[in-house]
C-alpha cells in the first residue's frame, strides 16, 4: 500500500503539471493579445501625432492623411479586439481597462483633429456613440454601427465610448453634447439621438450612406 500512495501522489503531480502548463499557455496567449492591442495603440497614436504635428506646422494637415480609411480601419480593429477581450471575461482586468481608456482618448484626439480640418472636401460624417456594458439595445446598436463601419469606411467615422469608463474627457464630451440616459445615445452632425436606430434609420440621419453604393468589404 506504501507504493500505492506514491502512485496517487505521482498521478497528482503529473496532473498538476499538465494543468499548470495548460493555464500558462493560455495566459501566455492572453498576454500576447494585450501586447497586440498595445502595438496597435502605438501605431494609431503615431499616425495621429504625425497628422497633428503637420497640422500645427502648416495650420492645415493633408486631407488624405486625416481621412485615410486606413486609420479608421485601425481604430475599428482595435475596438474589435477590445470588445473580444471584454466578451472573454477580461472586462474587469486593469490592463484592459487602461487600454480602453487609452483607446477612448485616441478616438477623442482623432475626432478633434478631423473636426478642425474644415477646409477639406468631402469630409466623412462623424458619429459619436455612447454605450454601456449591460445594455441589450447597445449590443444591437453596436452590430448596426459595425455593419456601417465595414460597408462605408470612407463616408463615416464612428467613435464609440463606454459611458461608464472612468475618463474625464468622455464625461466632458457627454456634457458638451448633453448626452442623457437611456443609452444607446449618439451624436450625428452635432445633433443628439437616443435609443436603437436600425441601418435604415441611420441612412436617413446620414444621407451620405443612402446615396453611396455599398462598398466592397475587405
Amino acid at each position, binding site marked *: 500500500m506504501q507504493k500505492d500512495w506514491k502512485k496517487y501522489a505521482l498521478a497528482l503531480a503529473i496532473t498538476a503539471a499538465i494543468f499548470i502548463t495548460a493555464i500558462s499557455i*493560455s495566459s501566455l496567449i492572453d498576454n500576447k493579445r494585450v501586447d497586440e492591442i498595445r502595438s496597435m495603440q502605438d501605431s494609431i497614436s503615431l499616425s495621429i501625432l504625425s497628422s497633428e504635428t503637420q497640422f500645427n506646422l502648416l495650420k492645415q494637415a493633408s486631407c488624405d492623411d486625416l481621412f485615410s480609411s486606413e486609420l479608421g480601419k485601425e481604430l475599428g480593429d482595435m475596438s474589435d479586439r477590445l470588445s473580444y477581450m471584454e466578451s472573454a471575461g477580461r472586462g474587469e482586468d486593469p490592463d484592459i481597462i487602461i487600454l480602453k481608456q487609452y483607446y477612448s482618448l485616441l478616438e477623442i484626439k482623432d475626432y478633434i483633429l478631423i473636426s478642425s480640418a474644415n477646409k477639406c472636401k468631402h469630409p466623412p460624417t462623424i458619429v459619436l456613440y455612447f454605450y454601456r456594458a449591460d445594455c441589450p439595445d447597445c449590443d444591437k446598436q453596436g452590430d448596426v454601427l459595425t455593419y456601417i463601419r465595414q460597408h462605408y469606411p470612407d463616408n463615416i467615422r464612428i467613435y464609440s465610448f463606454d459611458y461608464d469608463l472612468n475618463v474625464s474627457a468622455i464625461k466632458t464630451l457627454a456634457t458638451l453634447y448633453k448626452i442623457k440616459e437611456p443609452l444607446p445615445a449618439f451624436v450625428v452632425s452635432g445633433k443628439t439621438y437616443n435609443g436603437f436606430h436600425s441601418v435604415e434609420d441611420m441612412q436617413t440621419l446620414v444621407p451620405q450612406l443612402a446615396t453611396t453604393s455599398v462598398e466592397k468589404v475587405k
Partner: protein
Amino acid sequence: MDSVRDIATLTALFFSLYFEIFMLITYLERRKILHERVRLPTDTHAGLPGVTIIVPCYNEENTLTKTVESLLNVDYPKDKLHILAINDGSTDDTALVLKKYIGHPQIKVINKENGGKHTVLNLGIARATTDFVGCLDADSYAKPDALIRLMRRFENPLVMAVVPSLHVSSAETLIQKMQLVEYVIGTFLRSILGELNALYVTPGPFSIFRKSVFETIGYYKQAHNTEDMEMALRMQSHGLMIASAHDAVVYTSSPRTPKTLYRQRVRWVSGFLNNVRDYRHMLFRFRYGHIGGFILPMMLLSTATVLFVVSMFAYDIFLITKETVFRFEALNTKIFELSHPIWNWFFFYTSPALFAGAAVFFVLLCFIIIGATLSKSNYRLTTFDIACYAFLYSLIAPFWIIRSLANVALRKQSAWR
C-alpha cells in the same frame, strides 16, 4: 456566474485527467506482464481443470446455435468442458433449437419455468459438478483460445473470478462503430482495473468463477437488472480477488440503433448507481482497496461531470440562440454581410479548459491505442470509428445518464430490453 462555471469546468477536467493519468501509470508499471500475457501460447492442455459453462436462454432461437457451436469449438479438453443450456421458459422456439443437443456428451439441457436470469445462473451453479463455473450469454460467442486464457489466471490461488475482454461482434451501423471504440477503451480500463484489483463488474459473457465463491458469499440475487455488477461488488466487499484476462476475446452482440442502445445503457447506468447505493459502505474506504477508496467514487463523479457538462452546454446553446435571434432583429439578413475576423489567431478560443480538455482527449486516444494492442479482436479500428466515438458518444451518452439518474432518484425499475 462565469468564474464559478470556469472553476467547476476546470475541476471536472482535473479529476478526469487525474483518473486517466493514474490508470496510465498503472499500465506503465504493469506493461511487461500485460503484453506478455497476450503473447503466451495456448498449446499446453495438461492440468486444465473442469469447467461448467451455463448458457442462459430466454427467447434466443436465432443466436443460440452460434453461441453453443462457438463453445463446442473452444480449444479445451472435451472431457473437461461441460455446457449447461438452461431454457428460462422461452416463449419462442428456443426449446426446439435446444432439443437437437439432447444426448450430446458435453451438453446438458434443462428446461425451467421463467424466473429471470439470476434464477438460471443459480440453478446452473447448483447443478455444476466442476470446481469452476461460468456463463456465456446466448448473444455472445468466444474466440477458441479464450477459455484456456481465462482459466490460466486461476493458477494464482487467490484469484476467485476472471473476466474476459469484450468486443462488439459486428459493426455495421454508426452506433455499433461507436461501441467498437468504447469496448476497446473498456478492455484497457478492465485490464488496468484487474491489476488494481478493482473490477466492479463480472460481465455476463464468459466471466468464470470458482464455485466456492458462491458457497462462501451466496448465490446471485435480484439486483436492479445488473446482477453481474452486484456479484462483483459483493466479491470485492468480501475481499475476493477478480482478475482480468484481457487476452481472452469474447464477442457480444451490440445494440444497432440509438433506441436499443439507450435502453441497454439506462439499464447499465441505473443498475450501477443502484448497486453502488447498496454497497455505499465501500465508498471512500481504502479498507476495500482501490475500488472503494478511488475507483467507485471516481465513477460516480464522472456521472455527475457528464450531467454538469451537458447542462452547461445546453445553457450555452440557449444563450447563443437567444443572442442570435436578438442580433438578427437589429440587422436582419444584413447580419451575414458582417465580416468576422475569425481566422485571426487573436479571436481563437484559448481558455485553460481548452488545453486541459485536449490533454484529457489525448490520454483517451492513448487508451484506445493501448487497448487495441492488448487484445486482438477481428476488427481493426479506423480513424472514422474513433471520430464516430468522439462525436456521437458525447452527443448521446448524456441522455441515458440523465434518464438513469432520474430513474434512481425516483426509484424506478428499468426494463431489461
